[in-house]
């Protein structure tokens, strides 16, 4: 059954990818949707089997590599952590598949799109079901590839193309780190199967190695490199720049890849490797620092963006920051819980945004929207649910997971705990602020669009709304329904050793005022943003006028793109063109390839001339060869 679950998307992708043109749009969509739906149903069954009944499975597909001491299998490894990921991946993917049928209805390349989506799903499943680092890496690269293909799906748009390339290149930095981490692991433990590695790690605690002139413990090096990989995939600060640009892809892609699944792979990696990370408090601190900073930084940028999808993208970035600092504080299960709930409401928000964009005939700028909440009531209400869940409105799913993170930070003794808790609360407030800003700018106020008249704004078809409805159910109930299992009283038996805690995890209950602080701030943000973005825009403008430098700083995304352009892109181009024109063109080509090719060509001509076609020449060559070999034999 697990085989079916993993391979159905691949089969669907293959069938549709190769025969899509013959099958036609309808059948292609039917095949991919139904296959992925089946696999999501299976995943729920497996989740109940694995998580509730505490079973684990390790199914070998076949032996992959046997080379010296390296024995690797393609396999499907299912424990609680994997089963949670399976549910997230397949269910969101299934809903996105269905949604895409409606969203992409005007696109000529439907089979290709569906095929990519299914391929992505398969790669993600490979990633989460792996029992060794190499298969994980395979899935890791596979999702990267699928993401590249999907971001650049509208390959005729130059911005989509460059966004796709940017995503790919920035991710390579992370992948490089991951690869080095894996090499280190293999070098020192002699294996890259999770079980063996995790067993070997405690024996290597005292080992120090030196790299790039820095000497530190081996575990720290491994962790830091793995974390760099995770940072790239999960768009943490410094390696986050690709995520907002990735919004050039079709919206269902953003929902699936850049909100619910692929970007959370980094969190998954850290949690999966908790048996390694737990031994390196130093790196855990760094994770807290990076995660918290990302949460804050992305939140601030989200406040001023005007592209509806970019706002949500920065929000994703910020929520990923939450997950990371939760993991860094040792609360891996809470991180995964937030990942789980976040998948629902963020996918809901993205798909809702897609529905809005659809309604406005592909308009993404929020300034050109507004005042349509009566025209598209379903989308509007579903978006409200998503927003409430995201902001942590009491008793919706985000409330349980996010507050658990903040409480963990409060009760933690980690070095950066104070920093994390401040940021956590502050960011929660900002989250609420920009989320409501999005709602108000999009649905309320005056109708600002010049290209389309108000009467033409239309509600999306049912095929798009039904997936939204399911996600909304998830956004409302996922937190409440699963909190006992994921983070509540039963968490130890629920996770069933798939997460490793060095010390027993205890959550001190913070005082009541702190428990109330975040919800109150979140609620306060609603009227505040209503005042600023609907009621009295003048005061907002004047506020911006006063703080112009800060505003510009935020609008330009902390100048990260410019900084990178200055630091890396331009010098790289310059160095490249230097090497190309002078180094390569004159020096290397002159003596190397060009000279060599000339030499080889002349030798080749000689060799061909030798092939005269005369029999006695040939016989002669044989005899010459004979005499050479005989002489050699006699002399040596």
């Amino acid at each position: 059954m697990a085989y079916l679950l993993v391979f159905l998307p691949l089969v669907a992708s293959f069938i549709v990818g190769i025969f899509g043109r013959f099958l036609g749009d309808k059948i292609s969509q039917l095949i991919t949707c139904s296959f992925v739906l089946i696999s999501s149903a299976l995943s729920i069954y497996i989740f109940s089997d694995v998580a509730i009944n505490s079973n684990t499975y390790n199914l070998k597909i076949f032996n992959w590599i046997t080379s010296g001491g390296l024995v690797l299998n393609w396999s499907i490894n299912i424990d609680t952590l994997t089963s949670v990921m399976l549910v997230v991946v397949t269910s969101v993917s299934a809903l996105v598949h269905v949604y895409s049928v409606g969203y992409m209805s005007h696109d000529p390349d439907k089979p290709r799109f569906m095929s990519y989506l299914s391929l992505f799903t398969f790669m993600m499943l490979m990633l989460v079901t792996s029992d060794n680092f190499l298969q994980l890496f395979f899935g890791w690269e596979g999702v990267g590839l699928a993401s590249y293909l999907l971001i650049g799906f509208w390959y005729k748009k130059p911005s989509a193309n460059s966004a796709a390339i940017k995503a790919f290149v920035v991710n390579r930095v992370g992948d490089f780190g991951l690869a080095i981490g894996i090499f280190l692991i293999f070098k020192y433990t002699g294996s890259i199967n999770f079980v063996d590695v995790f067993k070997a790690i405690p024996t290597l605690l005292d080992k120090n190695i030196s790299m790039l002139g820095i000497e530190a413990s081996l575990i720290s090096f491994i962790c830091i490199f793995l974390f760099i990989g995770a940072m790239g995939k999960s768009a943490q600060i410094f390696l986050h720049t690709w995520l907002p640009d990735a919004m050039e892809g079709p919206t269902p892609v953003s929902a699936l890849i850049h909100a619910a699944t692929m970007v959370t792979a980094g969190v998954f990696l850290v949690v999966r490797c908790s048996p390694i990370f737990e031994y390196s408090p130093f790196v855990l601190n760094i994770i807290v620092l990076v995660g918290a900073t990302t949460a804050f930084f992305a939140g601030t940028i989200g406040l001023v963006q005007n592209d509806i999808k970019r706002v949500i993208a920065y929000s994703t970035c910020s929520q990923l920051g939450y997950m990371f600092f939760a993991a860094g504080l040792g609360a891996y299960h809470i991180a995964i819980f937030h990942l789980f709930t976040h998948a629902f409401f963020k996918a809901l928000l993205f798909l809702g945004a897609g529905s809005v964009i659809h309604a406005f005939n592909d308009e993404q700028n929020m300034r050109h929207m507004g005042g349509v909440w009566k025209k598209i009531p379903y989308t509007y209400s579903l978006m409200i649910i998503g927003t409430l869940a995201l902001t942590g409105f009491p008793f919706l799913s985000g409330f349980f997971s996010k507050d658990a993170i903040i409480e963990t930070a409060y009760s933690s003794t980690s070095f950066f705990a104070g920093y994390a808790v401040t940021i956590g609360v502050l960011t929660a407030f900002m989250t609420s602020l920009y989320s409501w800003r999005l709602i108000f700018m999009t649905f309320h106020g005056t109708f600002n669009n010049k290209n389309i008249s108000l009467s033409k704004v239309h509600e999306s078809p049912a095929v798009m709304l039904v997936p939204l409805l399911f996600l909304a159910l998830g956004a409302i109930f996922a937190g409440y329904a699963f909190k006992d299992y994921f983070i509540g009283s039963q968490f130890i038996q629920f996770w069933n050793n798939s997460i490793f805690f060095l010390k027993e995890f205890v959550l001190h209950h913070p005082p009541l005022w702190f428990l109330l602080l975040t919800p109150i701030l979140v609620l306060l943000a609603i009227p505040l943003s209503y005042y600023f973005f609907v009621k009295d825009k003048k005061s907002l403008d004047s506020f911006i006028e006063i703080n112009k430098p800060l505003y510009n700083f935020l609008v330009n995304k902390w100048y990260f793109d410019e900084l990178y352009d200055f630091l890396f892109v331009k010098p790289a181009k310059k160095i490249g063109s230097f090497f190309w024109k002078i180094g390569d063109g004159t020096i290397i080509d002159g003596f190397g390839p060009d000279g060599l090719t000339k030499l080889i060509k002349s030798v080749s001509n000689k060799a061909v001339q030798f092939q005269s076609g005369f029999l006695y020449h040939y016989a002669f060559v044989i005899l010459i060869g004979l005499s050479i070999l005989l002489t050699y034999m006699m002399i040596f």
Partner: protein
Amino acid sequence: MLAHSIIFYFFSFITIASSLMVIASKNTVHAVFFLILDFVSISSLFIMLGAEFLGMLTLIVYVGAVAVLFLFVVMMINVNFSELKSGFLEYIPFGLLIGLVILLELGMMIATWKYKPDFVVSNSIVNKTITNTESLGLVIYTDYIFFFQLSGFILLVAMIGAIVLTFRRKESLRRQDITTQVSRERTDSVELIEVKQSEGVKIND
């Protein structure tokens, strides 16, 4: 023992000399004659070794069949060898050099010849108590059955090859086919038709 040696060297000399003449003589018919001489002296050497069966076989097969066939072929097709040998001279120096090198090396090999200690014993491989034919027959269908059968297959392939490369079925030629000839009946070729008056018959051809 002396007579034995004299006869041995006599035939050996003829063998080498005549094989040289095979490739040296200008007239092709002469070359084939030298070839026959070569075979004859070889078979004599076999007989001297006590392998009279092999000697006779060489005589019968090579002289009686192969060489005579050669002779017919050479006489029937008129090949101008002097034309083929044009340009032969320019390769002589280099060819000589290579030949010399190989010859020297083979000479070295003979110079450093080391006999097995029991070499002389193994000289008498021929069992004197049974006849040559019998001793061959004893091993050829037992120990060497595999190689023997394999050789048979090689000959079969040679035959197939010769047929497939030379045999042409001429379409214009009418062959006698006995089965069709015998199985032919009157009804196949003669048809009796009742001729109606003043209408004639229409003959289908």
